[in-house]
């Protein structure tokens, strides 16, 4: 306890320092996005006392990635909502979406995976993930100068959230309290690894899963996140990824494919019936993913302005269009459209619109959705069958394929009337970004799989697989 009281005191002292710094009031709050350029409107008379205050006290010691918080309550409220929505995507959304699709003997294990991955990824985000993703690398590494390192990965300066106070902000979003920013980004860092679990469902060990996810969060997710959004080279290169087509979906989809190949097929794959145990759970899951995805995509505008609104509308339209097009394809080919199909289409559309959400116009979004349905259908139904890998719940077929499709189509449909950044859109750049992401993800995943294989192990025993992971790993049964 004593240590803690000391700790509090140290924190209190540093906070006191910070608090004498210029506190920008609500009335000054600049909007988060470049659009809302209110700076001209800020009356000089109000700026003056702030300057005065700054003169009285030493400036706060901000880290390289930080700015002082210029609290924009409205945008904070919006991002707060988005955080809740994205959190809901994983729990209970994804847990149910995946849990409903496995066989009854693996429901509990599958659901547990989403929960456990959330724990590991969330806590590691606090420990080191945020720092590596959004911090600035300030030390040379392997002989590379810090500046070069920072193109690939952030630094260790804000490990354990050191330097984060209630008055700091991430420099690209100065209107949002940094802890809000950290929370919002944490929900992305949680769902991305959780998505991978679909690829090797029904056959992975819990210890192996946890080790894999811990390493993957740090060595695959954080770097790619930094490269695209955190100041790294992909962002500077002009790769457009509004809400995570590459960072989240291609990344997790490719990791899933590699893992599925590495682990091998489930026992009985192709011969035994492996129908979903509960399509209603799948529906609830998909629907909550849908609702939550609004926070994922529109929330990535960081403020509910015109771009955020476009992202919202685009997300809904693309999802519905892809659900419809998948359904129509199935209706034609299979004669009877399935609920699983229309829901898979919905998710495929959501994935595909993710990189494009705030860059394209609604017509573009609709078309992206219409294309995403059949494309992901082909991957989940034919490519998988043809190539013979066992991507249990189509992490690759939907997230990998849909994400890549969306990333390319972002280059095609990006509309400068929606977002000025769209001017720089180019299919070439998008593809370069994709190729790079795929390589990093595939290689990183493979290395981590090898490590896990020789430490914790990865696959459960045949007997456990046959008995079902629920009773074998958790001693629980779902009736």
């Amino acid at each position, binding site marked *: 306890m004593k240590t803690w009281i000391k700790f509090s005191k140290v924190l209190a002292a540093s906070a006191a320092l910070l608090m004498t710094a210029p506190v920008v009031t609500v009335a000054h709050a600049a909007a988060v996005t470049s659009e809302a350029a209110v700076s001209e409107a800020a009356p000089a008379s109000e700026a003056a006392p702030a300057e005065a205050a700054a003169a009285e006290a030493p400036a706060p010691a901000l880290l390289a990635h930080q700015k002082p918080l210029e609290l924009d309550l409205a945008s904070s409220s919006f991002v707060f909502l988005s955080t809740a929505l994205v959190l809901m995507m994983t729990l209970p959304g994804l847990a149910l979406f995946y849990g409903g699709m496995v066989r009854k003997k693996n429901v509990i294990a599958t659901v547990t995976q989403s929960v456990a991955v959330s724990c590991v990824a969330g806590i590691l985000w606090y420990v080191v993930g945020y720092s590596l993703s959004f911090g600035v690398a300030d030390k040379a590494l392997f002989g590379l100068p810090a500046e070069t390192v920072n193109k690939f990965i952030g630094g260790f300066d804000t490990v354990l959230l050191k330097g984060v106070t209630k008055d700091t902000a991430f420099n690209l979003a100065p209107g949002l309290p940094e802890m809000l920013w950290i929370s919002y980004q944490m929900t992305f860092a949680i769902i991305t690894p959780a998505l991978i679990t679909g690829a090797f469902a029904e056959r992975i060990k819990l210890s192996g899963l946890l080790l894999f996810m811990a390493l993957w969060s740090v060595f695959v997710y954080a770097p790619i996140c930094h490269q695209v959004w955190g100041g790294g080279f992909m962002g500077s290169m002009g790769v457009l990824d509004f809400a995570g087509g590459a960072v989240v979906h291609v990344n997790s989809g490719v990791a899933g494919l590699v893992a599925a190949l590495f682990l091998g097929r489930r026992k009985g794959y*192709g011969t035994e*019936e*492996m129908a979903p145990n509960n399509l209603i759970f799948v529906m609830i899951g998909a629907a909550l993913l849908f609702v939550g995805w609004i926070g994922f995509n529109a929330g990535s505008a960081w403020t509910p302005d015109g771009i955020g609104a476009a992202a919202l509308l685009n997300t809904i339209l693309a999802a519905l269009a892809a659900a419809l097009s998948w359904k129509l394809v199935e209706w034609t080919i299979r004669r009877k459209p399935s609920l699983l199909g229309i829901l*898979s289409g919905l998710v495929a559309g959501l994935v595909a619109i993710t990189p494009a959400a705030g860059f394209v116009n609604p017509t573009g979004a609709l078309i992206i959705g219409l294309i995403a349905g059949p494309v992901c259908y082909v991957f*989940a*139904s*034919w490519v998988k*069958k043809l190539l013979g890998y066992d991507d249990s719940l189509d992490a690759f*077929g939907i997230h990998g394929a849909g994400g890549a499709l969306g990333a390319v189509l972002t280059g095609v449909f990006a509309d400068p009337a929606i977002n000025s950044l769209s001017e720089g859109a180019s299919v070439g750049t998008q593809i370069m970004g994709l190729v790079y992401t795929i390589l990093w993800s595939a290689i990183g995943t493979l290395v981590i799989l090898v490590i896990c294989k020789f430490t914790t192990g990865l696959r459960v025993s045949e007997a456990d697989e046959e008995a079902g992971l629920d009773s074998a790993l958790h001693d629980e049964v779902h009736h």
Partner: protein
Amino acid sequence: MKKIEAVIKPFKLDEVKEALQEIGVQGMTVLEAKGYGRQKGHSELYRGAEYVVDFLPKIKIELVVADDLAPAALEAIQTAARTGKIGDGKIFVSDVIDVVRIRTGESGPQAV
């Protein structure tokens, strides 16, 4: 006494029950079952994997009746459960040595 076991289509249960009630059958036990037979199942396709669903949902009725009631019960079930289409099901008849009513301890035909 005879034990009559009938495998029927699920939606015929109510009709069969009423038919049996009418001829004076006082009790029966019903189980959910899946049947495999000449009636072919459909095939389900999930994300590229096709499964032939061989087993169709059926209802199994079991009733024990006095020997003399057996023919009428057979007749009743058959009439009520028949749709004339493949998959209507089967009735099996076998012997029962003894019956006990748990509540009273009675045994033999009066326990049915």
